[in-house]
C-alpha cells in the first residue's frame, strides 16, 4: 500500500476513467493532471486535446493554462477554438471531457458561475469557459470535485453546464450532442448515475470513508446501492509519475504529503 494525499488519490482515481485511444478534453488543474497520468500509464494513445487549440499533446510537465506553451512541442496540430470546441467537440468527437464545479445537483448539473442570487451575486466564480460546451457535447463527462457538503446541493444557485437536466429525455429535448455526466469523483467517493432516473448514485467509497460519511456530506438524496465497494488506491508508480508531471507542486502541493 502506498501513502498518498487526498489530491493524489483524486487524480489517480480519475485517471482510471480514461481509456486508451480516446479523445480527451483535459482542461487545466487536477483533471489535466489525471488525463496526463492516464497517458503516462495505461492510456498511452489517449489523444489529449486542449480547447485553446492543441491536438494530441504530450507535455513534459503539467500546463497551468489551456493555452500554455507546455502543450505545444510534440503535439500534432496547433490551431484554435473553432477547431477544438466546434469541429471536434460539437461534432461529437470527444470521448471524455473533465470538469470541476463549485456546486452540483442530483442530476449532475453544474454551477461554476455565481454563488448567491443571479441578480445580486455574492461571489463571482470563473464562469463557463468551455465548460458548458464540454458538458453539452462530450460523449462522457467526468466531474472532479473536492468533497464539501455545501457543493452537493438540492438546488443550484445557477446552472452553468448541463448534467442530465431534469432527468430522462431532457438532454434529447435540447438536441444536446453528448451523453452527459458519467461519474463524479471526489476525495471521498465516486458516484455515477442511475440509468433509469438519471439521478446521482454512490459507486464506491474511498479507503478511510464510510457510506455514512458520504451521506452526511451531500444535501440531496443520494441513491445507495446494496453493495458499495471500496475505491482502488493509487499505486506508487502513479504517485511518482504525478510528481514528475507537477515538479513545482502547483497542483499537488509543495510537500510530499
Amino acid at each position, binding site marked *: 500500500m502506498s501513502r498518498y494525499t487526498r489530491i493524489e488519490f483524486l487524480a489517480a482515481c480519475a485517471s482510471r476513467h480514461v481509456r486508451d485511444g480516446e479523445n480527451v478534453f483535459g482542461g487545466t488543474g487536477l483533471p489535466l493532471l489525471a488525463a496526463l497520468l492516464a497517458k503516462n500509464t495505461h492510456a498511452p494513445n489517449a489523444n489529449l486535446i486542449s480547447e485553446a487549440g492543441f491536438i494530441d499533446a504530450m507535455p513534459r510537465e503539467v500546463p497551468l493554462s489551456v493555452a500554455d506553451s507546455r502543450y505545444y512541442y510534440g503535439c500534432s496540430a496547433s490551431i484554435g477554438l473553432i477547431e477544438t470546441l466546434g469541429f471536434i467537440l460539437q461534432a461529437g468527437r470527444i470521448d471524455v471531457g473533465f470538469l470541476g464545479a463549485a456546486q452540483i445537483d442530483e442530476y449532475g448539473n453544474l454551477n461554476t458561475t455565481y454563488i448567491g442570487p443571479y441578480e445580486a451575486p455574492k461571489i463571482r466564480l470563473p464562469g463557463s469557459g468551455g465548460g458548458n460546451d464540454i458538458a453539452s457535447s462530450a460523449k462522457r463527462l467526468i466531474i472532479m470535485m473536492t468533497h464539501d457538503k455545501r457543493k452537493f446541493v438540492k438546488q443550484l444557485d445557477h446552472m*452553468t453546464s448541463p448534467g442530465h437536466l431534469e432527468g430522462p429525455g431532457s438532454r434529447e429535448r435540447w438536441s*444536446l450532442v453528448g451523453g452527459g455526466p458519467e461519474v463524479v469523483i471526489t476525495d471521498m467517493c465516486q458516484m455515477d448515475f442511475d440509468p433509469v432516473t438519471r439521478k446521482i448514485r454512490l459507486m464506491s467509497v474511498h479507503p478511510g470513508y464510510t457510506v455514512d460519511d458520504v451521506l452526511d456530506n451531500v444535501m440531496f438524496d443520494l441513491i445507495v446501492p446494496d453493495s458499495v465497494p471500496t475505491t482502488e488506491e493509487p499505486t506508487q508508480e502513479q504517485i511518482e509519475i504525478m510528481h514528475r508531471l507537477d515538479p513545482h507542486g502547483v497542483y499537488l502541493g509543495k510537500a510530499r504529503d
Partner: protein
Amino acid sequence: MVPDGAGLFWGGFGYQRAPIAFAQELVRQKKRDLTIYTCGSEVDLEIMAGAGVAGRFEIAFVAIEAIGLAYNMRRRVAEGKVEIEDYSNLAMAMRFLGGALNVPFMPIRSLMGTDMANKSRYRGDKKLRVIDCPFTGQRVCLVPSVQPDFSIVHVQRVDQTGNAQIDGIVGEDIEGSRCGKKLIVLAEELVDEAEIRSRPDQTRIPAMYVDHVVVLPFIAHPMQCHNYYDYDLEFLQFFHKMTRKEETWQEYLDEYIFGVDDHWSYLDKVGWERLNQLRAKRPWGY
C-alpha cells in the same frame, strides 16, 4: 485612440499572448465604460475590472486558471460596478466568427437547457435565441454576432504594412481580428515585408485588416508569448496575491501601472535580468 464607452474585442487566450501592456495603457489613460468581448482572459481582465476602465464584459471565463480565482472581478461584481453577460467559449468564438463573416448570428449546440440561456444581465432577448431548425426540426441556439469598435490582438511578428504572423495556438484571434471595425495589432517583433511575402502560408492576419500596429517587447508579461518568452510564475503569484484585497490591489495599481510612465518603464521596473530569464528556449517555445 480608444474613446470612452467603446467596445473592444480582446485577443489572446488563457496565459497566451495576453495584451497586458495595452490594458495597462488603457488604465493610465483613465479610459472609462469600455465593453470587453473575449472568450477567457485573465490578468488583463483583472486589471481592467480592478481599475474601473471597463464596466461590461461579454465573456466566458475569468480566473488565473491554475493560480486561482479572479478577486478583482469578484469584488467589482459584488459592488455592482461590473456587469458580466455570460456565454461559453464556443458561443463567444462563434459570435466573433459571425461578426467576421458579417452575418447577424451563428448557430451553436451549447447553452440550451441551462441558465446560460435563461438569464441575461443587460442584453435581454438579444443575448441569444433558441429556435427550431427549419431544416431538421432540432433545437438550435442562435448567438448574436459581435462587431465591436476595435479588435486588440497581440501577435509574435508583424511587417511594416501590418501583415501579422502568430506562432502556436490562435485561440479565437483569427475571427476576433476580423470582427472589429478597427484592428490594432500589438507585436513583439517587426520583420521585413519580404520575409512575410516569402512565406504567405504563415500570415494569420493580412495587412488589409490592420489599422494600427504597435511593436514592443514583453507585451504579455507576466503572461507568455509562444517562441518569445514564458510566463513569470513568481510575478503572476505576486499579482494574484495583490488582487486579494482592495488595499493591496490599489498598492499594485499605484506602483506598477500609475507609477510608471509607459510600458518601457514597466519593464525597467520588472527588471531586464528577470525578463531575459523568461526568454523561450528551443525547441519548446517557452
